[in-house]
């Protein structure tokens, strides 16, 4: 999309795709799965026109490995899927992390386990924030709560991926992927200015020694050295890339912690509760890994009780409890496509917290 100040109504899925292309992504490979089909369709319609490569792969496994090849070739590359497909991509994500290759993986979450349902869910939090595949690794995870923010996070995600040479995940729930909102700003100049040099990329050994991309380290002790090097990187990410958003925390007795669409519904509940003088605030992690524990601990100091709201049976709540061992932490969640409503949240706070 050319630079224009005019806002356009787009679904989260389409906006994520456009943000990728605007951010300089020139390789996309994917496999159809609901609820992210608009994303792959947008890529099919636009990627080649803008000078990039689009491939409908034979499977999610092939798609992630094509992305690995493109990333190794030095090109900004992404793929997208949902639950079952993201499970298939885990091997590839582990290899990307082991090979230290940048790439963006979008998971528009649906309800599981198994084939589950195509309705919205936040049940892949554990998979996303704990590495997900085999081996000792992490991937930064960014969770948008609006279409506009999805655009920003895709652009930021590519920058983080290139800067640290690590795969980055966008974890959107189906509500974000499917809903339509006006978006306008696809200008990526608001992010890191410096383009990372990719002198490690495979481009043919012309006038330089041969490069190799690999994750195998067989000699005794060498893999551990590699692991330690990776750990340093992840420690740096933990320190520098924690992101969160807060609302209504100037005077606050009760704090809701929620991300993605659930944070929006929670904010609606907060506005209603505040009308009745119940002082509730919102803490919304934007980076799920690294979890913004520092920010949460600070704000939680002045809070009586915490309520975690998720569209799952309780996953992020574990990170909240890890960070706040001395706080009373409550949990309200629904699974299988059920969405906690503002009314349910208000009722829960009135009955259990107050």
């Amino acid at each position: 999309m050319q630079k224009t100040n005019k806002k356009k109504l787009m679904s989260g899925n389409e906006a994520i795709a456009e943000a990728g292309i605007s951010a300089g992504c020139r390789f996309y490979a994917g496999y159809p799965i609901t609820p992210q089909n608009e994303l792959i369709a947008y890529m099919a319609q636009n990627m080649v026109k803008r000078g990039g490569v689009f491939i409908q792969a034979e499977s999610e496994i092939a798609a992630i490995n094509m992305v690995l090849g493109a990333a190794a070739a030095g090109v900004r590359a992404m793929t997208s899927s949902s639950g079952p497909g993201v499970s298939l991509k885990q091997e590839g994500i582990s290899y990307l992390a082991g090979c230290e290759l940048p790439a963006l993986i979008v998971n528009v979450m649906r309800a599981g386990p198994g084939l589950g349902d195509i309705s919205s869910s936040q049940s892949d939090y554990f998979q996303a924030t704990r590495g997900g595949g085999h081996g000792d690794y992490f991937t930064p995870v960014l969770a948008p709560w609006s279409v506009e923010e999805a655009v920003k996070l895709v652009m930021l995600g590519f920058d983080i991926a290139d800067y640290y040479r690590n795969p980055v995940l966008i974890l959107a729930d189906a509500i974000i992927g499917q809903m339509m909102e006006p978006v306008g700003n696809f200008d990526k100049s608001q992010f890191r200015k410096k383009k990372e040099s990719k002198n490690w990329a495979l481009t043919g050994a012309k006038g330089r020694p041969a490069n190799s991309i690999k994750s195998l380290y067989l000699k005794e002790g060498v893999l551990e050295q590699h692991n330690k090097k990776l750990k340093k990187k992840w420690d740096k990410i933990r320190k520098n890339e924690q992101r969160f958003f807060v609302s209504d925390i100037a005077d606050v007795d009760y704090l809701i912690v929620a991300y993605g669409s659930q944070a929006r519904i929670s904010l609606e509940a907060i506005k209603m509760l505040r009308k009745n003088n119940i002082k509730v605030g919102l803490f919304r992690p934007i980076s799920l890994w690294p979890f913004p524990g520092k920010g949460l601990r600070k704000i939680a100091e002045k809070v009586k009780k915490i309520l975690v709201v998720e569209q799952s049976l309780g996953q992020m709540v574990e990170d909240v409890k890890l960070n706040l061992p001395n706080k009373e932490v409550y949990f309200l969640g629904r699974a299988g496509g059920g969405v906690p409503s503002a009314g349910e949240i208000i009722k829960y706070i009135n009955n259990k917290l107050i």
Partner: protein
Amino acid sequence: MKIKFSRPKSLIDVETHYCAGCGHGILNILTAKVVDELGIRDKTIGVAPVGCAVLAYKYWNFDVCEAAHGRALAVATGIKRCHPDKVIFTYQGDGDLASIGMAETVHAANRGEKITCVFVNNACYGMTGGQMAPTTIVGQKTTTTPLGRSPESGEGWPIKMAELLSGLKGVSYSVRTAVFNPQKVMQTYQYIKKAFINQIEGKGFSLVEVLSPCPAAWRKTPLDSMKWIEDEMVKYFPLGVIKRE
């Protein structure tokens, strides 16, 4: 004195990890020689498999990417589509290419990816100690077919990849060769060269299947292994050009 044979520039001077009599050594060299002869070292990118050839980047003096087990042709697709002017090849074993990676293989071939594929058929899984591969021949004993591969007991028949892929429109070149004597080694060299030239000329997918010895897993001497290819493997896997466009 005229030097008739020397180490290819595309081959690094180090000790190899291959077992005595293993065919990978010969095929690593042949591939490097082709790259030298075509003068494409600075625009060649190889993709190594998971299998005995996983360390190929230690031997080849050009850019190499390691791929997960079976995924070499997906990785190669990503590289080739980003660098259409470069020469991309995969080098894969039979477990990698025809078992765990069968989907990636068939679909890369069917898309007609302009990639060269060197397929090392040693009728077993070498790296993990000699289990049954999709290409293990009927009656062949492996650690997982202790009584010999038996289609009647549900172990299936050996898959003829060169024939199978030749049926796909995206495949422009499909041959089977072997390395059991010097003539066959030179023939194999010519086939690999042709498969690279095809790519440079913009033709579709090219496959060179090579019957290759694995003395360690076959529990045979290197010489007996060569003989076994000639006497037994070739009966089931006929040599020659199966498709050329």
